[in-house]
């Protein structure tokens, strides 16, 4: 059982490590420029990406 969980534990440890490194290496988050909880009535964030978007559409 333990051996089987090893893969998923390593995977999630790697995900957490990458998230931690990414957070500390990224532009500091501006808490005063957070979008409202719902995009409904406000629209998506200006830099929101989506797989259906053509490269120059935003």
């Amino acid at each position, binding site marked *: 059982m333990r051996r*089987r969980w090893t893969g*998923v534990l390593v995977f999630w440890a790697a995900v957490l490590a990458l998230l931690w490194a990414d*957070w500390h290496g990224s532009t500091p988050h501006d808490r005063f420029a*957070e979008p409202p909880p719902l995009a*409904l009535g406000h629209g998506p964030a200006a830099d929101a990406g989506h797989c259906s978007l053509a490269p120059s559409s935003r």
Partner: protein
Amino acid sequence: MAGALTSSAARGAAPFLAAPRRGVPCAALSTGAVLAFAAITWLVGWRQGLLWLIGLGYGVLLSAAAFGFTTGWRVWITRRDPKGLWAQFVGIAVAMLLSVPLLAAHPELDGADGPLSISLLIGAFVFGAAMQVADGCGSGTLYKAGLGHPVSLAVLPAFVFGSFLGAAQLPAWLSLGSLPPVNLVQRLGAGCTLLLQLAALAVLAALLWRWRSTAPSRWNGATVWWAAIGLGLLAAANLAVAGQPWGIVYGLGLWGGKIVQALGIDIQHNAFWGQPVQQAQLHASVLADNTSVTDLGLLFGALIAASAKGKACPAVRLPLRQWLAAVAAGLLLGYSSRLAFGCNVGAYFSGIATGSVHGWVWFGCAFAGSLLGVRLRHRLGMAD
């Protein structure tokens, strides 16, 4: 391979069937999910926190019901079992019934409007073939990787790198020829779009019924229907919270871009990743990206559901050839999904649900690709 994986998964899950062992990781994981919600909300805001919860919901439903786009198509092709495809149509219809009126009344929301390009035709066809060899599409690879399936854990990094590479070369592919996106909500209005698209899904469902086999379905009981309805509701919530439909592969490509950039490779001058909006994403935390947060939630939700059912971390034994084929197919999945402006989620599910014509084109081309992919599976010795 699916059959082999399923049987080996069932054998591997046997030790987890004892309730005390299964309950502890599930409770711990659920607590972790709540803590992650609090952390994401605290660090990047309510919108991202809500998207984490929506992503968790996707993962729980996909994993609990074994809701697979890939398998649904394959069992129709090989066994004329229509239940998987019917469930997909139900999910799309529920999402459509909520999303189309929202899009019509709220122009600030975006549909999954992909261009009608040569790259869409090629990308969707290749994706359809590759998803059968990898035994997982965008959502399938993510949820199975999340629950610890060894093959999907191996496929996911290749998928991530392929998505990055596909996005990097997308402008060159678009130069082959492209028409602008066509959204039926904008062209016909909400009522006509719903009528037309629901009628199209009903006709397809009727054709599946006409040609169905009388053999028992792969999916027993009503779980898959509830999962389909739940996925449709969550997809509509995704649109209301994020302002854009459910998507998967943009986030994976972004993760690839960040890793490549961290390795010191300059992508500032790339035609795609060098654009100001992409540079902003690359320099911000992935937690600020809508698609990344729902992808992470999906991964974790799948693990919670699988551990609750004692199906996490299945044991898998495959020959090396099948491992290599799956990883190569993962690379192709990532690359082709960016060419096709989405995978089974961003293009097929969300595209059709938000009235984008590219969703229908994607469906046709990817299904044709799956016909080839199923043959490739047989050549590689993979079971249905």
